[in-house]
């Protein structure tokens, strides 16, 4: 952590977005994580993404559980709503919050412990329900807060700081999400903002559960030789198969790419994700192909990154349940609470 607060002065040429806000207006408190933590870079990417999309901070709800990753919502969008839940229970709180107020843009930040160990069941059901939220899994392969034990995402063979090798199989968040029917699955790296920022933006615009697994090195306990989640290892083994360019609704779409290398997916709000494919044969809208490709790269010892799968016809939890349009808070009181007569009528239907 750092003792002084970040000075509020900024570069004279710092740009403002459509709301008249600078990137600095999307910051939160100064980080208390270790110096060099990948999570801080993800925080910076989130700040940049929200700023560039002209999203008013008070229209956002930030949710998290417990862990290093779950501390990070304090470090961005200081004017957004926030809820720091019980360990692993963030998906349930997010589901409830989203049920009550679907107008809020939901971002959940979790870690490999919070999501893949204690909260695995919660995560699975949020994916199944297709809760409309961006879910960022800050994945460093260790339990940093308890001094670096292997987490559920630690690869077999990766070593601890002391040199012991992990013997158990890893849970791969992206594969898990694909099998559970996730409608948006991406993998990125905290050290590659060019890739990460547009993925976060596409995830925010996506209507449904946008799962983003971000390799985020733990500089204190998992950045050594022998680690498969270090800065150096990730840089060496990451293979970007498809690069997402996020095009907001208000910007014209220009075609400058060679035939067959770009796949366009129009999102629910009219914005477009352009998928620049490094591998020409890759189809990012084919769930089975995505699954196979991830497995294939894993076998070769590579970390496949990019926007791996995107369902063009995602139906979120509200669509599926045909809920009332708008948030509960915006409903007139007589609709929200129609009174005893309406209740009696409803109950009559079930007698």
């Amino acid at each position, binding site marked *: 952590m750092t*003792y*002084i607060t970040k000075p509020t*002065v900024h*570069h004279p040429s710092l740009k403002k977005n459509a709301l008249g806000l600078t990137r600095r207006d999307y910051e939160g408190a100064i980080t208390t994580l270790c110096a*060099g933590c990948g999570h801080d870079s993800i925080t910076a990417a989130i700040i940049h993404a929200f700023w560039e999309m002209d999203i008013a901070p008070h229209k956002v709800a930030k949710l998290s559980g417990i862990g290093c990753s779950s501390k990070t919502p304090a470090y961005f969008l200081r004017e957004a709503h926030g809820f720091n839940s019980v360990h692993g229970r963030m998906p349930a709180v997010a589901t409830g919050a989203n049920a009550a107020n679907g107008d809020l843009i939901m971002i959940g930040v979790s870690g490999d412990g919070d999501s893949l160990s204690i909260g695995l069941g919660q995560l699975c059901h949020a994916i199944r329900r297709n809760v409309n939220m961006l879910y960022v899994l800050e994945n460093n392969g260790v339990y940093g807060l308890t001094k670096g034990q292997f987490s559920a995402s630690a690869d077999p063979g990766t070593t601890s700081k002391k040199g012991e090798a992990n013997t158990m199989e890893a849970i791969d968040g992206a594969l898990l999400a694909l099998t559970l029917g996730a409608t948006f699955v991406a993998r990125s790296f905290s050290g590659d903002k060019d890739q990460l920022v547009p993925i976060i933006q596409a995830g925010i615009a996506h209507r449904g559960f946008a799962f983003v697994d971000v390799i985020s090195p733990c*500089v204190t306990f998992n950045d050594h030789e022998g680690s498969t989640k270090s800065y150096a290892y990730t840089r060496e083994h990451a293979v970007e198969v498809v690069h997402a360019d996020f095009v907001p609704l208000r910007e014209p779409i220009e075609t400058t790419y060679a035939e067959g290398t770009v796949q366009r997916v129009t999102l629910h709000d009219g914005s477009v994700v352009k998928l620049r494919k490094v591998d020409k044969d890759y189809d990012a809208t084919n769930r089975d192909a995505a699954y196979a490709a991830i497995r294939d790269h894993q076998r070769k010892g590579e970390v496949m990154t990019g926007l791996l799968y995107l369902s063009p016809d995602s139906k979120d939890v509200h669509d599926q349940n045909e809920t009332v349009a708008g948030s509960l808070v915006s409903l007139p009181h007589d609709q929200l609470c129609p009174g005893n007569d309406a209740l009696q009528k409803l109950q009559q239907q079930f007698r």
Partner: protein
Amino acid sequence: MSRTDTSDPNYYHKVVDCQWACPAHTNVPEYIRMIAQGRFDDAYILNRESNVFPGILGRTCDRPCEPACRRGRVDGKPVAICRLKRVAADHKDDITDRIPKAPAKKNGKKVALIGAGPSALTVANDLMPLGYQCTIFEKGPRPGGLMRINIPAFRLPEPVLDEEIGYIVNMGVEMKYDAPVTSLKSLVTTNEYDAVFVGSGAPKGKELDLPGRHDTDQIFIGIEWLESIHFGHIHEVGKRVLIIGVGNTAMDCCRSAKRLGATDVKVISRKTRKYFKASPWELEDAEEEQVEILENLSPVRFIIEGGTLTGMEFDKFTSQEVDGKLVQEPAGRITLPCDSVVLAIGQENAFPWIERDMGLEFDTKWDMPVVDKTTFMSTRPGVFFGGDAAFGPANIIWAVEHGHQAAISIDLFCHGQALSERPKATMALTSTKMGLHEWSYSNDYDPVQRQKMKHVNLPERFSKMTVEVEEGFTAEQTKHEVERCLNCDVQTHFTDSLCIECDACIDICPVDCLTIAPAAASESAQRQHLMAPAENLDQPLFESGPLKQTGRLMVKDENVCLHCGLCAERCPTYAWDMRKFVLELPYAGTAFIPLEAVGR
């Protein structure tokens, strides 16, 4: 692009904008920190090493450091460096013990110095402790040169002058007062002196020969007039006074006129405000004293009626800026009534006492002695020039620096060494890291605004010539102003091989100074591909060598770096460190070390 060479003292020196801009390269951030710690004696002595006259300069310096100050680019107003210097001078205890002393045993070399102004006094200050015997020939009765006779006492009180000049004179300089040198040739040819230094200033005010100039006794030459006021020869002036010219001397003249009883004082300028030679703060101080400054007027004639000056006629102009240049068109004439006129349109050198057949070359265009810009020696070996006498009118701080350089040359000359083999500036870099989050300097950015100097009220200051206008900073003001300094000498020092490209420094930097970028073809291309474009070309760009993991470069735009140390604090590998840069300046007596000897 190649890696920035930070082992060259010039790179980090340039980052310390104030020190780089100061002709004498005073270590400003270090003395401001000392003031912050209440170490006024140390701050004074540190100042004195480079600028010799902290009390005098703390009141009168032209402050080239302040327009250069980084704080000005961050929040619009530079640190009040000059006024903090005065704080150190005003609040120090007796520091006599810490002034260098002349050794009892002399080195047998004698130096004659002509004029007891800032440049010659600096030469004596540097040479006396080395055992030289210095003799100063001063045409007036007291030392100080223009500092004493041209700068009015309401800006520079006499006790301050006496004290700081005393520190030098009391080293045992032989002072010859009322001793104008009338022949340089005879002084030199006596062979009594091993070297001669000419620091006689630019004592001649420029004349304005227009009709009527010599038909009245109410037209004065600025610097002569100020001198007469100083010596008590002039006690009054007309009620309506016109000052011709708009430099700093004009400001001293108009404000002196107010104190001599003038009620209507106008300063006349040919050009518009942007082109005024006076420092902005001197203009403000004059306007505060209800002096009117008129633009776009060019003198035509003095109007004399019955032997009495009644006014002046001027050509009027309209002005506009075309492509950054001032274009003036005639716009008729105007007559301004007045009782006295003071001409403050510049100064000239005058060397009627230097014989032109003594092997000391004068240039044909300006009739100025030919002086080497590095060594300050004339074409006659052993005769040196400095201050306004060398290259025409400048200011006190330049005169001091000339004095330092001339002293180095004189020392080399007297020891038979080549003047070109000058001792080099070196640097020391020391980490300021004290703990995980602690640094040995105040790294937290204080948003406090520049403190405003309090001035004595108008009736009181007009009552006497010697009432100092500026009251000096209060303790409270000093406390705030010292915290405005960004500590630019505490450098962000980068070690390429340690960087793991985690982006932590880039994410935390409040002013977007840092980028990890692929190497660009040129520096100008690199400047456009950064977190924020580096458009201030006066400010250097730091570029690392290729980084280990990706081969990209760490690039830093120095322009608005706050030196807050957050990059170093968030760096997990110590690749960034905050290191205090100390420039070791050479002075007379600093040994010349050939570069090969230190392995460079």
